[in-house]
């Protein structure tokens, strides 16, 4: 066990953990940030996607010891008021079914729009290609990301 200081959603947090504990479990079990979901634990589903220094990454694949001073953003920290254009688009396009995968989908989309505000269909497919939605909300995910990219949310 060691003490790690990590930066999550703009705040410095101290956690006591084994070095190999994945960020996902640090967030969920130690910091009570349960918005990032466990779907596979092997980097194959995207449910645990967070931003690390603005880049989309699977938190189940990041040992806490490797984070250093990198800045982690989770769904809870994506916006102050839940009004990120993607969050608004997700509500307006009624994307969620069970909702379990959606934090990961939104975080992957947020990383995409940050570096590429107007992605093509192929770029969108590529950026969200890891994220499984078992409920099959893909059509609405496409529609919602495009609406957010076009600034077409209310």
């Amino acid at each position, binding site marked *: 066990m060691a003490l790690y200081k990590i930066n999550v959603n703009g705040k410095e947090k101290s956690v006591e953990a084994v070095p190999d504990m994945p960020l996902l479990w640090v967030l969920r*079990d130690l910091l009570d940030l349960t918005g990032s979901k466990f779907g596979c634990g092997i980097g194959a589903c995207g449910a645990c996607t967070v931003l690390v220094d603005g880049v989309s990454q699977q938190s189940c694949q990041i040992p806490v010891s490797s984070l250093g001073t990198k800045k982690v953003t989770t769904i809870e920290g994506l916006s102050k008021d839940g009004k990120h254009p993607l969050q608004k688009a997700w509500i307006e396009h*009624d994307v969620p079914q069970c909702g379990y995968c959606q934090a990961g989908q939104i975080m992957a989309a947020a990383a995409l729009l940050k570096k590429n505000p107007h992605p093509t269909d192929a770029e969108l497919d590529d950026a969200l290609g890891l994220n499984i939605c078992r409920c099959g909300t893909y059509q609405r995910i496409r529609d919602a990301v495009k609406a957010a990219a076009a600034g077409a949310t209310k």
Partner: protein
Amino acid sequence: MSDRKELTRRNFIQLVGGVGASLALGSFASLACADVALKTPTAGTGASFAPNVFVKVDPDGKVTVTIICPDAGQGSRTALAMLVAEELDVDWHNVAVVQAPANQAVYGRQGIGGSNTVRSMFGELRRVGATTRMMLVAAAAKNWKVDASTLKTSSGHVLSADGKKSVAYGALTAVAATMPVPTSDIVLKKPEDFKIIGKPRTRIDNPDVVTGKAQYGLDVKIPGMVYAVIARPPAFGATLKSFDDTAAKAVPGVLQVIQVPSGVAVVGSNTWAAISGRKALKIDWDMGPNTDLDSAKITAQLVAAVGPHKEMPEGAKTIEATFDFPYLSHATMEPMNAVADVHDDHCTLWSGTQQPTGAVGQVAGLLKLPQEKVTLNVTLLGGGFGRRLSNEYIIDAVNVSKAIKKPVKVVWTREDDMKHDNYRPAGHSALKGAVDASGSPVGWSHQTITAGRGGAGSYGNPDLSYNIPGAGMRQGGVRIPVPTGAWRSVEHTLQSVANECFMDELAHAAGKDPFEFRKGLLTNERLKHCLVTAAEKAGWGTPLPAGHGRGIACFEGYGSYAAHVIELSVENGQIKLHRAVCVVDCGIAVNPTGVEAQMQGACTDGLATALSAAITIRNGSVVENNWSNFLWMRLDGMPKVEVHIIPSAEAPGGMGEPGYPSVPPAVANALFAATGKRVRKFPIKLDELV
């Protein structure tokens, strides 16, 4: 912490207080999610007006609807609240929902399955709204000293006949609570007067979902809670001989290692500690009697169980085909889990289950406690599809908590979840059909044999939708020690899929267009209309680029009707999906955006199971263990999916399942159109076409 607030909010008894003594509405007997026998009227609680267990009106006009059915993503929390809000005549933005815990005494049986939730409660929840509204109107009539029949309501207000006087529901709560509960002359709105039903309402949980606040079973944390994972038998029928927990206990954060009925539980101070501890555990298993079992042998047994086909008419042209189906995992996005806090005289549970009252019964039996001493708080479900009809993950948590005398969350990892599911059974369908010289079908024989622990008859036997003289369907089974269970649309995932594949082959044998052939044989007008609509929307018969093909199929069941056209092509040795046209007639679409979502979801399931998803058995165990080898659709493989809802004033049909069965055959039929080759096995591999 938001967890705690959430849990308290969900605790119905606390929240609605004394409403256990509630309104008498004898008509609830037909609820499928509940068979509710409500008792005597209540005067409500405090200043709020809660005339029955389903609805509460606050002095500020806020309406809270209690949802007694779990929401596994089918949108029931939204659609059920819409039913109440419609007849109560309130504005949708003033409506909130609260999830009821399991409580058979108050709500009757609570459970979701068979695409039943909305259709089974359509009449009853509207009556709840209507009676509540009538009591508010009676209260205004009393205050104004006028006859209630002269008053109207609109947007959460009671209005005088001339519209000059208006009072908000919130101002009437105290008086309304003293009004008698109407038991007769409950008038429901006419469909043409609906303001909420039939108008798309985005999901009531969306704001919580997109901010990460929505709480699933896996997100529950209660004071003093520890975490556990269980090492389960590595083959079906394997049993524990002994284990050595020395290394496991040396893993930081591991608290205890104990034997439980389902295996060896490793308890840790967090999930990762438990998972790491399990990796270090040394277990000696007796591998049991099934280590020779594999998918090829199972298929051989299924094939051997096929009997002779029905006789076909003399002189007719006959064709035969067979279709193999693999086991399928439900693979809900949220793996199985539950939190249990077991004490000597009571037990509290948190879980997302499709069968809350069933779980309470099981746990009460296991702990030898009266049912009222078992509290189950129902969280959101990260997917159901039939997987959460059984409650073994809750039993796991109860067993561990009982043994360690602490609250515990039992987590199934994805590997646990995929290798220990109740699978859609593997199956083998054999079909024979005949057409006469004019191309009319004159014979049809269908046998499907499924492989599951239940043997024959464990999966249903659907009717054929087509008018074919002497058509015969037979379902049989072989007993195979692989646990099976209901999977979205159950038997239709096999038989109805095989029917619609073979229908295409019969049309071809008759020299007819597969759409026209079906159309001529369908007897149900609603189904026929779906088929025709799908063909029209997809441009059936219009030219396609070279190498493309369209396939069509249709389905009726669960009180609804559906048809699909899939367009695909084969490029560079790979199937590329271009377009999925989905049509449904589900009667009144209570929430059209929810109906569309169910069709999109079922379509995705149909595509994934047609093209890639399969569970394979080898050495008596499941080979696939995660999303890396149980291959599901991802964004980049998805075609454009369009959904068309047939306008209807008929009673609502089910929506969870009817969108699935015609998708895999539409894919197979499109592949024939594109390549001239037939599918004999799912999931489809191009090199296995014939």
